């Protein structure tokens, strides 16, 4: 009940504060339009770098939303409410991650093909692109809860957050963009996707643990 209540509330809050949802998408759109202008090249060059660009954009656009996962709750005091309700902080962190994934991860996945088209991503790569993002966006949200819990009482901690979790996200980028790249070249993406899945499971089990510990540290 607590678990769902927290997810429900977070999704509702993000839904009402629309910028949470469209900010990453606008960010992606703005940057992707710069590529053809900056490169000045035809479809072939764009297609070559498309897997990497689509993936990096998905990653960066999620990164800018991570800071607020816990920070908003910390600042308005509603964090105290669920911490003091005796709620298991592992579950609380997990539900925060799930809510973040609903409001950021899913839009990013659904928007990725648009970016793909703008980058002339080869037609047969879209399935794998979305599948790889489906596996990876939960990781962004889960690691984001850890980072956000660590920096929630720091003013302007966004930069610190990026520095903290970027190294953890680098392997995800390698496997994810690698999967799309292999597919676009006509190879199998199986091994990349399996590694990505492994990362998803790993962060699903461990990240809430770390986030819960980070909340405790910050409250002491």
């Amino acid at each position, binding site marked *: 009940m*607590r678990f769902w209540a927290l997810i429900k509330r977070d999704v509702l809050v993000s839904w009402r504060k629309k910028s949470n949802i469209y900010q990453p998408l606008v960010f992606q759109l703005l940057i992707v339009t710069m590529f053809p202008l900056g490169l000045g090249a035809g479809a072939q060059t764009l297609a070559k770098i498309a897997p990497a660009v689509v993936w990096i954009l998905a990653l960066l656009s999620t990164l800018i939303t991570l800071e607020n996962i816990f920070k908003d709750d910390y600042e308005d005091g509603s964090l105290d409410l669920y*911490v003091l309700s005796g709620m298991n902080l592992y579950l609380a962190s997990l539900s925060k991650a799930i809510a973040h994934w609903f409001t950021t991860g899913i839009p990013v996945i659904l928007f990725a093909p648009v970016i793909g088209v703008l980058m002339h991503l080869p037609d047969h790569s879209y399935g794998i692109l979305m599948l790889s993002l489906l596996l990876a966006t939960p990781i962004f949200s889960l690691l984001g809860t850890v980072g956000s819990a660590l920096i929630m009482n720091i003013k302007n901690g966004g930069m610190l957050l990026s520095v903290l979790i970027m190294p953890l996200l680098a392997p995800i980028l390698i496997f994810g963009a690698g999967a799309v790249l292999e597919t676009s070249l006509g190879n199998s993406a199986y091994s990349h996707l399996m590694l990505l899945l492994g990362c998803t499971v790993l962060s699903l089990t461990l990240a809430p643990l770390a986030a819960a510990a980070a909340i405790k540290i910050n*409250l002491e």
Partner: protein
Amino acid sequence: MISLLLRCQKLKLTLQKHAANKPLISALLQIQDAQCQRAGEVLFAPINLAMDQSELTVIAGPNGSGKTTLLEAMAGLSRFSSGYRRYEQSEELNNWLQHSHYLGHKLGNKGNLSCAENLEFVAHINEISVNQQQTEDVLDKAGLAGYQHQFASDLSAGQKKRLALSRLLLLNKTFWLLDEPFVNLDHAGCDWLYQIIESHISQGGAVILTAHDQKKIHDLANHHITLEAIPEEVFT
């Protein structure tokens, strides 16, 4: 031998004299030798408190003396740097959390949720199910009748405080820990808050709060804690 007896007597007497400050072993809530730190510095001399049901404790002290820090530590949001809290003879935190509700300076209202949604969330997070009628009743009592669909961010400061205080009526916890609950409230609001505190105490609840110039609430209190900053030289 006689002198020893006499000394024992004397000790007993002094003990009785300080009985108000010394914890009774049977007390429901016991706080023993509690101290808090801020930025590595101890804030006040050790606090002892023993509270039972139907009691009120008022914490007073100048700004910066550590009232909020003490209350947060009592609530379980942070830790005492030394000393402990014991509830029903146990130091286990979860048991205490189930029976207490803390309301601090950060009110915990979500701005873009309506009043009713804010209350529902708090109820659900405390594993209480509420229906629309109950939340409306609670808002009525808090003087927020008709505001149930209003976003919390659209309320005035006093109304926000009322919304936060209305949680107390919804959650039905034994211990209330309130950090300056009278701040931002108008006269009617202060009277209302005084009344709910009084009726909560008469119904077997217990309240710990910090307040400055609320004479009525000071008169009602069973325990007073006055925080005084520890002189610097003690630690240098």
